């Protein structure tokens, strides 16, 4: 078993190779940076203002949360066309729960402190059940996921319609609204605390990862590469938080609600928004799913099944139950996205989440998830969602007409996949 390519002396490595960063990830970050810079020039610097960065991040949160789950669905060679509809039915259910069922039927009264939490728990349970049902139809009944979720696309949105009789339901509970709206933010101080914790966690993760490798006697990156990576990541976290902290609350809002911002008087009170709660939710979801993907058996089996379903089955993996789990996770994420989306609107509408299924799939695919299965990353899907939302908002700011916006977004989707295919051909990756 001779291997002619293997040599004992490592070849000379470039700066990027030493960092051991995924080149595809760099490509996506580059594309995202390009989009931002171009729109910033076209809008005379309005695109990269703290205010717009803040808006972009809360607009992206809902789709990005679902896109992380779509990665698992697509990696196992399935598809979910019903995520927008599940979002709608979860949103309708939660809107009714918090405005009618809990306050009136159970008699808690509007504004009871339990209402938002019971509502969210119930919504997540509904999402999980619908997702698990989809997964059961796909895994145990053998109906193709495309068909199951195409049916679900029609069914669930209209179940929501029937529930609410097509009415707009609101206003939603004030605490519930904090999960998606502009007022649900951490504020300056807590945002900095969060940034500090995030930077420390990043350093600790990189260091402990290196320690494990050294412990097993595996090759490690040079120290300077490790330090550069730490500096770059920490810098990015701090820059993002600093930008959000630079978005000041408008004077009129301060004059009205200065007590809410911890000030004794409106004079001399200069609060800023800081990190939105919906973005915190997205970060929590992203971290959890990344851990699941990389550090748990469930994640390993998801990727193994996507790579070779027969091999997974022969290795003793219950691929049917796995399908149920993957769709149930997708359902839970649809429910969380429903919290964010309806909270941002402050009420539930019949058309909430319309076309989200396409945005979510596009985000996952632009983020490098292969429809042939087995390949995909959580951070890629979030970057994909960011790129899509930036394009859409940027074009809206420049004043591009709606049809042209869609034409551009559609073309970008196809182009991104084409680039990915070329990249794989050149690097020989699967």
């Amino acid at each position, binding site marked *: 078993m001779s291997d002619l390519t293997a040599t004992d002396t490592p070849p000379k490595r470039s700066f990027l190779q030493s960092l051991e960063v995924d080149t595809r990830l760099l490509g996506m970050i580059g594309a995202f940076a390009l989009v931002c810079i171009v729109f910033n020039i076209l809008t005379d610097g309005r695109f990269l203002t703290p205010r717009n960065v803040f808006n972009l991040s809360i607009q992206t949160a809902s789709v990005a949360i679902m896109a992380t789950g779509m990665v698992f669905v697509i990696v196992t060679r399935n598809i979910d066309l019903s995520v927008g509809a599940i979002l709608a039915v979860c949103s309708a259910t939660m809107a009714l729960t918090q405005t009618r069922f809990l306050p009136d039927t159970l008699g808690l009264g509007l504004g009871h402190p339990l209402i938002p939490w019971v509502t969210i728990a119930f919504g997540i349970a509904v999402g999980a059940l619908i997702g698990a049902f989809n997964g059961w139809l796909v895994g145990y009944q053998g109906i193709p996921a495309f068909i199951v979720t195409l049916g679900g696309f029609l069914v669930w949105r209209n179940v929501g319609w029937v529930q609410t009789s097509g009415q707009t339901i609101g206003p939603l509970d004030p605490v519930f609204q904090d999960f998606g709206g502009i007022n649900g933010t951490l504020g300056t101080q807590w945002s900095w605390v969060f940034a500090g914790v995030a930077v420390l966690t990043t350093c600790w993760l990189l260091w402990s990862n290196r320690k494990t490798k050294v412990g097993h006697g595996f090759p490690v990156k040079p120290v300077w590469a490790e330090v550069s990576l730490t500096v770059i990541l920490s810098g990015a976290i701090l820059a993002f938080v600093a930008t959000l902290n630079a978005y000041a609350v408008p004077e009129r809002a301060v004059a009205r609600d200065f007590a809410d911002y911890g000030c004794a008087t409106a004079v001399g009170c200069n609060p800023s928004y800081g990190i939105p709660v919906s973005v915190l939710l997205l970060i929590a979801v992203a971290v959890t799913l990344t851990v699941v993907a990389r550090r748990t058996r469930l994640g390993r089996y998801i990727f193994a099944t996507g790579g070779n379903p027969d091999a997974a089955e022969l290795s003793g993996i219950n691929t049917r139950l796995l399908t149920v789990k993957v769709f149930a996770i997708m359902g839970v994420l649809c429910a969380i996205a429903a919290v964010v989306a309806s909270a941002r609107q402050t009420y539930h509408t019949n058309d909430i989440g319309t076309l989200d299924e396409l945005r979510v799939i596009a985000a996952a695919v632009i983020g490098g998830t292969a429809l042939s299965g*087995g390949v995909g990353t959580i951070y890629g899907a979030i970057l994909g969602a960011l790129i899509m939302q930036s394009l859409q908002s940027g074009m809206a700011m420049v004043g591009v007409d709606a049809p042209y916006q869609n034409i551009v977004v559609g073309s970008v989707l196809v182009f991104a996949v084409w680039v990915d295919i070329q990249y794989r051909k050149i690097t020989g990756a699967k």
Partner: protein
Amino acid sequence: MTPLVQMKDVSISFGGVKAVDHVSIDLYPGEVVGLLGHNGAGKSTLIKMLSGAYKMDSGEIWIEGKKAEIHSPRDSRDYNIETIYQTLALADNLDAASNLFLGRELTTKLGFVDDGRMEAETRKIMARLNPNFKKLKEPVSALSGGQRQSVAIARAVYFKAKILIMDEPTAALGVHETKMVADLIQELKKQGLGIFLISHDTREMMELCDRVSVMKNGQVVGTERVEDVTEDDILSMIILGKNPRAAA
């Protein structure tokens, strides 16, 4: 001596076609039993019942003198049966360590997958089986046929199989790599493993096996010790479906 494996009067049909028709076969420790026959003779189907990939319609499987219940690949593994499939059954998108431990991952105290420990174990076993194996970080799709084969074999060796099933283990390999597999079979035999070997190469089977069973149309034509028969005898059994020695 108690046989490691006894498959007694085993049958399975697929949509009215009797793929395996009342077959009985056994395997002793330290023995290599070859299964020969045309494509569709039922060799792979027979061993897939032992490895838990198919459920038999009737018959019994006895492992080390006790009746065994094998309903899934996991059951089969619990009896220390390991299978190296013709298609290798590797997840191409995962690296060697993930494939070696697929379905039996090593975990940390908190229950997370312990990639470091799995990679270290993989390095150890590969140093023994295939010292040239270096691509531990890459997905197995980037490996050569021989390297992929050594990942599949490492799986069987690492988990201390007592019974090894090899379905066309050398079909995709070059001369040098075929030799390596042959040496490994000899070594495992010495350790007391029982091996079922499936191949089309009659000459190779005469060299590697202690006994050969020839199958045709789902039935066993005959089982002979290799020293008692010539290659021509075997060939005529495969082609004619009759055992010349039984007739004599």
